[in-house]
Structures are given as C-alpha cells and as structure tokens.
C-alpha cells in the first residue's frame, strides 16, 4: 500500500562535496579550454569520455580491482548531476556507466569483467542497449531475436531498434530468446554482450524528428557470441533486465534534461522581474528541488543495496512531466524574437527532444502501471 512508497531521508556524506569540487574543477577547465560546447548530455564525444575516465570519474562505485574506486552511490550521483548541469557530452560513457558496467560486474564471467570493466572505467569502451525490437517495445518479453547454441557460444539472429549510439559504441547488450517463454512469459531469455565489430552485425542510424541520428537499428545475421560474453546463465535474461531498471530510471538524467533551457530562461528573466515571472521561476525550481531530493533518496537506496524499482519509476514519471513542462512555460514567458541566441537554441532543442523523454527508458504508461502495482492495486 502507500507505505511501500517510503523514500527515506537523504544523507550526503562529506566526501560528496569533495567529489563535487573535483568534477567542477575538471569541467570548468574543459570549458575554459574550449574542449566542448555545452549541449545535451546525450552528445557522443569519445575524446571527452576518455579524458573523463582518465580523470577517474567513470565507474566510481565499482571495486578497485576492476578499475573502480569503491565510492558511494551518492558520490556517483554528484558526478552525474554535475555533468548534466554543465552540459557535458556524456553520451559515450552513459550506458556503460549507468547500467551495462553494473550488469557486467554482477553477472559476467570473471575473464570478461577483468577485460571490459577497466576499459569502461577508463573511458575507452562504449556500450549500447539492444532490447527493443520493431515488434517489441513496452512488451519486452515478446522479443524475437533468437540465440541458438553453437560451439563455444551462441549464434544470434534478429533485429534490435532504438539502440542509442549503436553506430558509435563497441558493444551492445542484447536480450535474446534462447528457450521457451514458459507460463510466466518471462522465461527463456538471455542477455549477451555483443561486440559490434563481429561479422554479421549491421548498424543503421535512424533519423529522428529533431534532426539527430542518435538511435539505430541493429540487424544480426548469424552473429557469433562466445560463452564468456553471456551475462548470468542461459534463461536469466529477464531477471537481469529487471534488476537494472532502478538504476536506469531514477537518476538526474530523468529530471534535468532541459536544464540548459532553464538556465537561459533565468538569464532572460533576470531583467524582467514581474510578479508573474518570479512565481513562474519559483514554481519550476520548486519542482526541480523536490525531484532532486527524491532522486537522491533513490540513490541512497541503491547505496543500501535495495531495489527501489517503485520509487525509481515514480521519480522518472514525475521527473519527465516536469522536464516536458519547462519549454511550455518558457515559450510563453519569453519573447523569442528578442531573446538571446543561447535561449532560442536551447528552446528549439528542448521542444524537439521533449516527446522522447516519456517514451525512452520506460514509457509513462508502463511506469504508472508499475507504480499502481507497487501501491497494491491488484
């Protein structure tokens, strides 16, 4: 029931401020040296990611023996939110750091952990997600990409779609059917790490309405994957995918997507201090602050090794609603024809990107169903 919703108080240990200072120093230097131009965090910049990894900011919660630093989820949160607030191009490292690396850490054979994790932490090895298919979106367990047993591994046939940055990353985490779906419909699925340079893989970027070509279709034709690149055991796929949802859904990237626009909005309104504008700004910051507290609380639960799928779903849905409201509020408060270039650029990008936020990473409708179930609605 409603008690299931308990978020818990946020506890930011003092190390968080230390980490924040370090990340800010790094990002400021990058900006001062013109190494990147602030934009959306999805921007793929392999060079930036390498520098960021070398500076020790990727995979910080992982064990030291795999290239991590055994730091807390709260310190990790600080790194992520600073990246977003500074408009840093974190696209290359995002999936690997947020979920794939964690899955490898938890479920991959030792030799794969040793080979891949330090490279991810070093900002040199990039990941994408291969879950959705043309006929399987929200109904993920209906995937038809098939993996059949071969000598020393598996052979994959099928197609994945909407894989962000598949045309630029090294590996894709692929959910494929290896057996019968069974009574629960969730059996017979297995997670594979597919190296995209393997023969039989064809990646085609798809142009989106904002003009980008970030996500892709990936077709597998008799693509071989060795045993060492299987996560967990055959048939563990569904459980593994479910276990990463709390990580995928609760972070600052679910509440801060239009942050650049918010900043430019403030810049425009600094010289237009009507009561209406002050209220409008106050309302946006009220939402952002409360969402941040909720998101931090989820990070605390991850730190405590809980699986806060309910809270994560809630944060993402409420966060996305806030995110999508920012451009709608801004455009009525500011006259675009007299506004600055930075504002107009941020507004354009935000309006065109906004529809995808409630679709990717768990649609609004699916999330609300999860929340309802978590509240005990039968």
């Amino acid at each position: 029931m409603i008690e299931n919703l308990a978020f818990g108080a946020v506890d930011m240990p003092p190390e968080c401020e230390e980490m924040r200072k370090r990340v800010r120093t790094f990002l400021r230097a990058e900006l001062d040296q013109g190494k990147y131009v602030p934009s959306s965090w999805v921007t793929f910049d392999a060079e930036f990611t390498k520098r960021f990894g070398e500076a020790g900011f990727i995979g910080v919660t992982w064990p030291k023996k795999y290239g991590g630093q055994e730091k807390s989820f709260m310190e990790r949160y600080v790194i992520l939110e600073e990246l977003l607030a500074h408009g840093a191009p974190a696209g290359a490292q995002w999936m690997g750091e947020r979920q794939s690396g964690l899955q490898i850490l938890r479920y991959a054979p030792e030799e794969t952990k040793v080979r891949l994790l330090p490279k991810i932490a070093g900002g040199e090895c990039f990941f994408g997600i291969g879950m959705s298919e043309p006929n399987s979106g929200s109904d993920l367990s209906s995937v038809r990409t098939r993996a059949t047993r071969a000598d020393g591994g598996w052979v994959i046939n099928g197609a994945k779609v909407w894989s962000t940055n598949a045309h630029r990353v090294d590996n894709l985490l692929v959910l494929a059917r290896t057996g019968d779906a069974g009574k629960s419909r969730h059996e017979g699925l297995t997670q594979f790490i597919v190296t995209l340079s393997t023969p039989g893989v064809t990646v085609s970027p798809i142009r989106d309405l904002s003009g980008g070509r970030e996500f892709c279709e990936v077709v597998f034709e008799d693509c071989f994957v060795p045993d060492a690149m299987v996560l967990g055991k055959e048939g563990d796929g569904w459980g593994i995918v479910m276990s990463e949802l709390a990580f995928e859904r609760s972070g600052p990237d679910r509440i801060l997507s239009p942050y650049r626009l918010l900043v430019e909005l403030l810049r425009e309104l600094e010289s237009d201090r009507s009561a209406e504008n002050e209220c409008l700004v106050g309302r946006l910051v009220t939402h952002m602050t409360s969402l941040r507290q909720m998101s931090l609380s989820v990070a605390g639960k991850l730190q405590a090794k809980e699986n806060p799928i309910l809270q994560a779903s809630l944060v993402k849905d409420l966060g996305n609603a806030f995110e999508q409201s920012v451009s709608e509020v801004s455009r009525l408060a500011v006259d675009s024809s007299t506004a600055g270039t930075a504002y107009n650029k941020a507004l354009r990008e935000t309006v065109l990107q906004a529809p995808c936020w409630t679709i990717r990473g768990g649609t609004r409708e699916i999330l609300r169903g999860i929340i309802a179930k978590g509240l005990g609605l039968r």
Partner: protein
Amino acid sequence: MNEMREIILDMTNRLLSDHCNQEAWEQLDEGSWPESIWGLLAEQGLTTVGVSEENGGVGLGFDDMMSIIRLTGYHACPAPLAEAIVANWLIDIAGNVPCSDKSTVALPPADAMPTYGANGTLCGHLKGVAWGSQVDTIVTLCVSETGEEMLAAFLPSKIASSPVDAANLANEPRSDISLEGDAPEWACPLPKSLTAHRLRAVGALLRASQMAGAMERAISFSLEYVNDRKQFGRPIGKFQAVQHMLAIAAEHYSASSVIANAASLTFGGEDFDFMAAIAKARAGEAVQVISDSVHQSHGAIGFTHEYSLQFFTRRLWSWRDEFGNERQWQREVGRKVLDAGADGLWPMITSLGVK
C-alpha cells in the same frame, strides 16, 4: 534521541488513531470543542514536545516536531495540537513558561503585524487565527514602534474586543482578533536566529507537514476503496484509468512528503526559509491533483458527508491557503533564484542542506 523519537511518534500515532475517528470529526464539524481529546494529548505531554526538557517538555528536535505535526494531518486531529506544539516551542524559546497547553500561533504577514507600543500594549488585527477563540494563549508576531520584530503572548479571554469567529472549509475554527491597546502576558524581541520571516516559514512548513499526512491518508482510503469496489465484475482498481490516476496522485504526494521532510531537516541552517517555501509551494500545488484523484476514484460515495474522505480533502483545500498559498511562496523562491542569477542556480541548488 532516535529511540525517544520513535516512542513518541508511536504513542502519538496510537493516541490519535484511537481518538480521531468519524465521531470526533463529525463533532468538530458540528462546532464542538473536543475537550476529552485535548485532555489526553496534554496528559501525554504531546503539546509540549518541542519545549526543552529542563522546562518540562521532551526537547524534541525541530524535524521530529514536524513528524508529529504530520501525524495530526494524517489523523485529521480535531484539535490544535500542531499549533500548540509550535506555540509552546516559541513560548519556551522566549524564556517563558506556557500558561496552559491550549495555545496557538498567529504569524501575520510583514505588512500586517500588530504594533507593540512603548506603553507595553498591542494594537492591530490578526486574521484567521487558528482556534483563536478556543485556546488560552495566542503567541503572535508583532513589531515595536522602532521597527524591531518581536514575539508576544496574550490571552484572548483578557482582550477588550470580541473576536469575529469563522471557520475554514473543513470547519476548523478561525478567528479574526482585534487588539486595541491590550496588554500581552509578555513581549520580547525575537531571538537573532528567528526572524519574523523565518517564523512564517515555520508556519508554512507546519501546514505543509500536515498536508503530507492528510494526502497520505486520503490516498490510502482510495487504494483500499478501489480494491474493494467492484463494477463490471471486477475491482475498479483493475482499470488502467483508475490505476494511472492514483499513480499520479502518489507521485505528487511523494514529492510533497519528501520535500517537507527535507525542509524540516534544514532548520537551524541558512537554507531553511528557502526549503520551507518550496515545501509549502509544492504541497499546495499537489492538492488539486490529489483531491481530484481521490474524489474521482471514490465516485459518488466519496462526495457524501458521511464518508470520511471529505474530512481530509476539506482540510487540504483549507490548509493550502493558510500560512501563505503556493503563489506567494513560489514568488519567494523565484525572487531568491532570480537574485542569484542564471549562473547562480546550480551552486544554490547543490548547496541546499549541505552542512
């Protein structure tokens, strides 16, 4: 203090649970003062939880006080326990002993504070004082002739004028009180750490905390109802439209609850006023969505007087307008944010509550 907190919270919850029920709520709705409930609360020392131990209280920290206050919302306590807790806390801070446990706070806006004259009397108007005619002591903000912010306590039974008694939408008593040269029991300058503005923020957080409790209760009723109520051969909670409606309500409740808790933890630091403003603004805004969802999911039965839901939604509709509505507090937040400038936003947000 953690153990003590758990014990007191538990006791408060049980006491309120036992006595705050349909009968009690209806009694208040019909205008009668719940002497028996009040007696029990006072007996257990709940009205002085914020008073220091050496002065006979429990000495609970500010955030724990707000946790108890949240319970008064959860149980729709038909008595000014929340107000008395804060009033007695203030009386203690001002170095005085509570004259009686029945007290309330008045926190007038900056342009409406009564003046405390050089002759030691109060002049001014206090609007909508919660339980003003039912309590023995009213603690109020006032301002000296030289502009110094002060705190004063007066006994409504001793003042010259008669109050104008009214009620909010939940029929909780609210009185307009005229002070016409009345002598308070005491008056003193506000302590340095507690400006009038900060006290108004305390008032805002008091209501925000109560609102979080009432939201939780109203949504709980709804969850139970939609699992029981069957139409078209199944519980209405199985319908996606109903599920999504309550999921959304839960989201807004969670945001309100989380930020109210977070704000209470910042008391004593420089971020408190800002966080309390955010908490009241967030809770205020959440009321429409939540009251809509809880009433809609209950259908006609939830619209009746007999069904308990309305005791909670009428309180939410009332409390969102008390101690500042969301517009006023949003403006407060926005003003501070715009003063800090566009590039000041991130440092501001990330330093909130950091010790």
